[in-house]
């Protein structure tokens, strides 16, 4: 989408019958939803009739995001990247989160290879109700030997359902692997100024997405355009991860994204690939720390796919968390409804705990209570969607508010004791709260991860 569309622009091409078959009350409402990307064109049955074919195609074109969505892999194991249509997340949202590939290579010992592959397979991390994973395995041809590369690809493929990235600048090496795993729709890395035709043919033959690589923006555009002249539209762009000069990497990423979204440049309207794995430093620890900072920079500025080397959990944790943050829908409210919640099946002598209505705080506390298996009541205070520390500092969480909430939810009728556990960071209001409400305030842990221990040691009704 080069220019910002309004619902009217879309409405013009809809059937205008207001038949409601799409589930919306009017065609106009459907048009608004299309812009928010909450519905698809295919959700309007009228539009799918042959009479509307032309309009359908027109709309499809109009609504196509500036950055094409590219899928890697087949079946259940597909990874989607790109599909982005805004420069800044607050303008709408970022859609497909940055996919993370872990690198392996064809000179690894069988054991080491399997270990890395299984690490990716088993990598699961639960955070605030979401399962965070690693997404692909990138196989590098270190040996340069086609046979060896093909064998490695076949071994990896047998061991994992994750989509693959096949990495070599030699078309013969790539072809050898594609013969074995080409049916799984791996991402081919990479077509260059010198190899675009041969690699492009492979991409067409095996119907795989392909990376266009060039260190220079004009050359990158030319390679992508050459691939497109072959009829290839599943392209990923690598503008060169010169990790020693992040200024240049950031510049190229930003300019490619601006070209795709603001200039509707079809040659550059593709997802971006970054390679933090290219970090070079002698010392292993320093290298890993650097790799994380480089990956974070790229993720903050438009990378759709990253190839990583590190498999240290302390290094991956900040990255998958950053990704979860950036790809959160900014339209999602910050706050949950205040009120009283039951966790498990609380009784009259179950503990009562207090938290704020900042969604993140709330979900973290609930998940901690659930995993600790504590049956209790959770009193959620309306703090304008601010967390504990912030609302204590800003005055959105104070004794009188808690007192009112206790009254409003008739807490006194729910339990027979008169004790409430408050967050550690709200210790400052405990005295006031006891005076105003008559309930005893037990100052809980600073972090809800300590609740289990706290309740076990300190709670008695």
């Amino acid at each position, binding site marked *: 989408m080069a220019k910002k569309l309004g619902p009217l622009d879309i409405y013009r091409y809809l059937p205008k019958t207001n038949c409601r078959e799409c589930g919306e009350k009017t065609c106009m409402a459907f048009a608004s939803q299309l812009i928010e990307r909450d519905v698809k064109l295919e959700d309007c049955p009228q539009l799918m009739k042959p009479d509307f074919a032309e309009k359908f195609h027109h709309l499809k074109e109009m609504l196509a995001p500036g950055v094409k969505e590219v899928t890697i892999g087949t079946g259940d194991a597909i990874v989607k990247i790109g599909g982005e249509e805004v420069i*800044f997340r607050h303008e709408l949202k970022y859609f497909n989160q940055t996919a993370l590939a872990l690198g392996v290579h064809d000179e690894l010992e069988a054991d080491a290879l399997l270990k890395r592959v299984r690490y990716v397979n088993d990598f699961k991390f639960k955070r605030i109700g979401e399962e965070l994973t690693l997404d692909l395995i990138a196989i590098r041809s270190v040996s340069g030997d086609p046979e060896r590369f093909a064998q490695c690809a076949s071994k990896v493929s047998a061991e994992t359902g994750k989509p693959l990235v096949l990495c070599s600048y030699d078309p013969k090496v790539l072809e050898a692997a594609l013969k074995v795993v080409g049916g799984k729709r791996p991402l081919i890395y990479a077509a260059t100024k010198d190899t675009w035709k041969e690699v492009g043919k492979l991409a067409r033959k095996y119907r795989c997405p392909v990376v266009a690589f060039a260190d220079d923006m*004009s050359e990158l555009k030319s390679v992508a355009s050459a691939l497109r002249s072959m009829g290839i539209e599943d392209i990923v762009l690598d503008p060169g991860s010169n990790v020693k000069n992040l*200024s240049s990497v950031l510049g190229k990423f930003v300019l490619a994204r601006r070209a795709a979204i603001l200039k509707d440049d079809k040659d550059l309207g593709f997802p971006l690939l970054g390679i933090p794995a290219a970090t070079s430093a002698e010392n292993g620890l320093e290298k890993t720390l650097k790799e994380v*900072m480089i990956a974070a920079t790229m993720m*903050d500025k438009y990378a759709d796919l990253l190839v990583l080397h590190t498999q240290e959990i302390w290094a991956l944790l900040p990255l998958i968390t950053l990704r979860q943050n950036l790809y959160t829908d900014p339209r999602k409210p910050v706050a949950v409804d205040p009120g009283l919640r039951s966790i498990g099946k609380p009784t009259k002598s179950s503990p009562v705990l207090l938290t704020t209505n900042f969604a993140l705080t709330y979900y973290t506390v609930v998940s901690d209570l659930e995993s600790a298996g504590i049956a209790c009541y959770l009193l959620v205070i309306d703090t304008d969607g601010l967390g504990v520390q912030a609302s204590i500092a800003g005055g959105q969480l104070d004794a009188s508010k808690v007192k009112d909430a206790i009254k409003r939810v008739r807490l006194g009728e729910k339990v027979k004791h008169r004790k409430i556990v408050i967050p550690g960071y709200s210790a400052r209001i405990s005295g006031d709260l006891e005076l105003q409400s008559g309930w005893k305030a037990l100052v809980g842990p600073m972090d809800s991860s300590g609740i289990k221990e706290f309740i076990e040691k300190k709670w008695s009704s």
Partner: protein
Amino acid sequence: MKFDLTKLDELLKGAEELELENVDMSVGELELALSAMVSAAKRAEYRDLSFEALLMDFPGRVAEVELGATKANGGTRKNVVRVGGEKTLPFYNFEAQNPYRPVIAYDVFDMKVHLAGPVRKHFEEVLEDPAEWAKLCVKYGADLVTVHLISTDPTLKDTSAREAAKTVEDVLQAVKVPIIIGGSGNPEKDPEVLEKAAEVAEGERCVISSASLNLDYKRVARACMKHGHVVLSWTQLDINDQRTLNKHLLGLGMKKEDLIMDPTTAALGYGLEYSFSIMERIRLAALKGDGDLQMPVSSGTTNAWGAREAWMDAREWGDREKRGPLWEAVTALTLCLAGSDLFMMMSPTAVGLFKDTVESLSRPREVEPLDIGNWISMR
């Protein structure tokens, strides 16, 4: 859906190769595949295209704020620190050069506080002596030092404003970098504490933290104007509140050059995206010419240590001595890319990582060409 075969015929005319081994596809897919073949039939070619960068020429500019005063300007600081002055987004070196790099203010507290292990180990010896603590920060390379007068909180030690002002004097004696003076966050007490601190630090051009909508910000602002300090305008993740408070402060006669704003830093994993987007929106508004938001931005990056992933000693999360500093460094980096200028931080390891990355982001674009084979064949 029906498929028009005459069209198919037309499409195929002139196609030189046709591979249709796998015809198990939907009509849409078939159409796509066909159109791909058709364009394939057009001659595949490589043309040398030239990329034209889309550059922005923003009409607005962030105000430049000078922190600290040397002898020449009536203070006793050895150097001043400048922030702001941006003409484009952070590190968009391809379209304009922003004048200053981000700066780091290390946190110092006026009483012993609980610190996460990976931070505490750097400051173990000085936790009860703010002046010594400040000196140590300067050794670690602090551009500025923030002294947080938290003991003034009536629910903590209820230290008097006069007593707290002494601590400020001690720190000013101990170090020669510009300083930031923070209250306890108690809205009743802070104006008095900050007023007194501003008075004893007269002429030093400190940053006074903070003026907010929930306290008597006028009193804080007037003290700053009277004694020559910069005000930190603090709001909580709400761009409209930030604009309102800035307007009020400007309305009192303050200049943009005397203000820094802190729209609140939520830690990585705990709402960082809100801070990220608010800072990005603030900076874009400033560059587009919104005079009420054209002040440099400060981030309380130390909040990153509130995240359990930063401090907790959990084996399944790996070594916290690395994880913790990374948590703080990634929080800083992300907000830096969103537009923050000044970072209040704690871990020297995190600061080091952050500064390294900033260094790389600030380099001139022309560099030695990239060895493309390198990363693939690396063992």
